[in-house]
């Protein structure tokens, strides 16, 4: 974009700023005088046409009216460590409720004195997720480390050994539930979705119709009813005396639901692979599974990282729906925290906080996916 072009939309404005900041921000005035950078940039990009001037002023007005009250409520007039009475007297947010109720929000109904255990389990889990994201650690020992961490988490959460009191998993709640449900559902759903997507392209009619049927059934039903079915109906099909844990049933429901959506994303990638790649693999006498795992999937999955991560994020947020089958995820625990009559008026603060927690995890996933995409598509660069 040359510097005398006239961007009309804000998108073009942003693009011109991002792509060529050096050109856009320096204006050469007659006589070789260079204007101050921010001033020149604003004149060039924000006030260059009548329409842009109006839009700029309008945006400034909106920000002027919206931002100060927000900052006042969030920070300036907020009560951070006060009592509920001080909160009632104040005009701002009551963050005291978070300070007072954070244990309940994070760990739900887990026995209060034992809550260091879910805390440690979550810390281990998040640390391990972080480690798994680093390329240098993609070594065989990572699988061993995961096995150890999962065992450690199980011991911490359930207890019953090493002098830890036993805590049955209907007492679990809050962040551990949200994290474990979403991470396990994603981990299980991903390979399943690949099989479903491959099955949907299979030349065997039985496999194909089974996969199509499953995907269409899951996509055609709201997650809430899938969870209900998993929780209420599924036990009816089991033989007398056999019960499957409520948490596990919700996990199964969430996994199957996510897998169906993921499968369609993966299928998009499979369809984008040119026919020549299949033919070259065939001509080299690679078997179906060699062709699929060595040639097709590595290319197909790289192409669909954005929609796959989209689905991961969606799955993470969907865990908050398990409340309808009586599980205490982070959001449910937060809701419970607002039921205390003393703090009841301050539910907004609790939901802002819960939202922030969800946002932190989802935003991390989003950023990570951008890095992953760049790394995975190195070979496309010339």
């Amino acid at each position: 974009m040359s510097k005398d072009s006239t961007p009309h939309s804000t998108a073009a404005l942003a693009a011109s700023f991002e792509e060529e900041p050096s050109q856009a921000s320096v204006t050469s005035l007659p006589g070789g005088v260079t204007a101050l950078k921010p001033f020149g940039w604003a004149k060039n990009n924000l006030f260059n046409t009548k329409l842009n001037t109006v839009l700029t002023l309008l945006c400034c007005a909106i920000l002027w009216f919206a931002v100060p009250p927000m900052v006042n409520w969030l920070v300036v007039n907020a009560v951070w460590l006060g009592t509920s009475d001080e909160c009632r007297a104040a005009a701002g947010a009551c963050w005291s409720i978070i300070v007072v109720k954070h244990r309940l929000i994070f760990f739900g109904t887990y026995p209060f004195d034992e809550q260091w255990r879910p805390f440690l389990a979550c810390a281990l889990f998040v640390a391990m997720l972080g480690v798994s994201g680093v390329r240098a650690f993609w070594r065989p020992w990572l699988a061993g480390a995961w096995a150890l961490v999962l065992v450690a988490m199980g011991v911490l959460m359930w207890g019953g050994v090493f002098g830890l009191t036993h805590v049955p998993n209907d007492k679990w709640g809050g962040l551990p539930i949200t994290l474990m449900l979403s991470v396990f559902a994603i981990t299980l759903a991903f390979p399943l979705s690949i099989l479903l997507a491959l099955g949907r392209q299979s030349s065997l009619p039985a496999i194909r119709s089974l996969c199509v049927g499953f995907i269409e059934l899951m996509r055609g039903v709201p997650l809430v009813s899938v969870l209900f079915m998993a929780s209420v109906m599924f036990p009816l099909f089991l033989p007398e005396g056999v019960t499957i844990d409520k948490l596990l049933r919700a996990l199964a429901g969430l996994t199957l639901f996510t897998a169906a959506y993921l499968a369609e994303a993966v299928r998009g990638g499979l369809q984008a692979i040119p026919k020549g790649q299949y033919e070259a693999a065939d001509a080299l006498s690679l078997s179906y599974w060699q062709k699929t795992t060595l040639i097709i999937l590595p290319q197909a999955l790289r192409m669909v990282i954005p929609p796959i991560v989209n689905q991961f994020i969606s799955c993470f947020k969907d865990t908050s729906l398990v409340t309808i089958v009586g599980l205490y995820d982070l959001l449910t625990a937060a809701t419970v925290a607002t039921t205390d009559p003393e703090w009841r008026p301050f539910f907004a603060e609790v939901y802002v906080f819960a939202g922030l927690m969800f946002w932190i995890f989802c935003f991390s996933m989003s950023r990570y996916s951008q890095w992953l995409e760049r790394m995975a598509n190195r070979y496309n660069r010339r």
Partner: protein
Amino acid sequence: MSENAVIELRKVGKWYNSYHALRDVSLTIRKGEKVVVCGPSGSGKSTMIRCINRLEAHQTGHIIVNGTELTDDVKAIEKIRKQVGMVFQNFNLFPHLTVLQNLTLAPIWVRGMAKSEIEEIAMMYLRRVRIPDQAHKFPGQLSGGQQQRVAIARALCMRPEIMLFDEPTSALDPEMVKEVLDVMIELADEGMTMVCVTHEMGFARSVADSIIFMAEGTIIESGSPAQFFENPKSERTRQFLGQILEH
């Protein structure tokens, strides 16, 4: 089956739905023979060559490669594909693998060769196609001519007895055609059995033992280059030669 024939097609027929792509194609190729297949587009020449390693399935007749008949039997298909290398018009290199990985993948997974051993062989072939310095680049970083030479080296790494070329120079810029043809001529000189669909008549004239001319799914004429170029039997061949040799 005739004496030392490595590829034999007997009355091969193929349809795409109602379109009759191959009509009773019969053909015998001896060991070490270089066959050039030419003809107008849609004449079935690519279809025929792709039937030889079962990228397309024929519906009637018989195809026998190195004593094994091609049927629906997966074992037979695998056996034949291991003996037959193929080079495509659009190279079809694996873009997510480096040049060296493109060469070593099939020998490692299909032939079970040790990585170090096949890497040495692969580098030998890359030297032969004159691009050893590109071994660790991705295909997307190479020119078309270089990519096609990698594709030839990739096929050779499987130690095939027969090489099929499906219009190997048609997708190349003119200045890159020669570097690929040079590699093919070297290969021919070494005695490789080659079946080559191409419009490069200079290559056909100097390298081919026999030239096959196809039109409308049948073989119209086959013979030595001398006979084919100097004294074509059918009117259809004369017409085709007139069209492509005019310029």
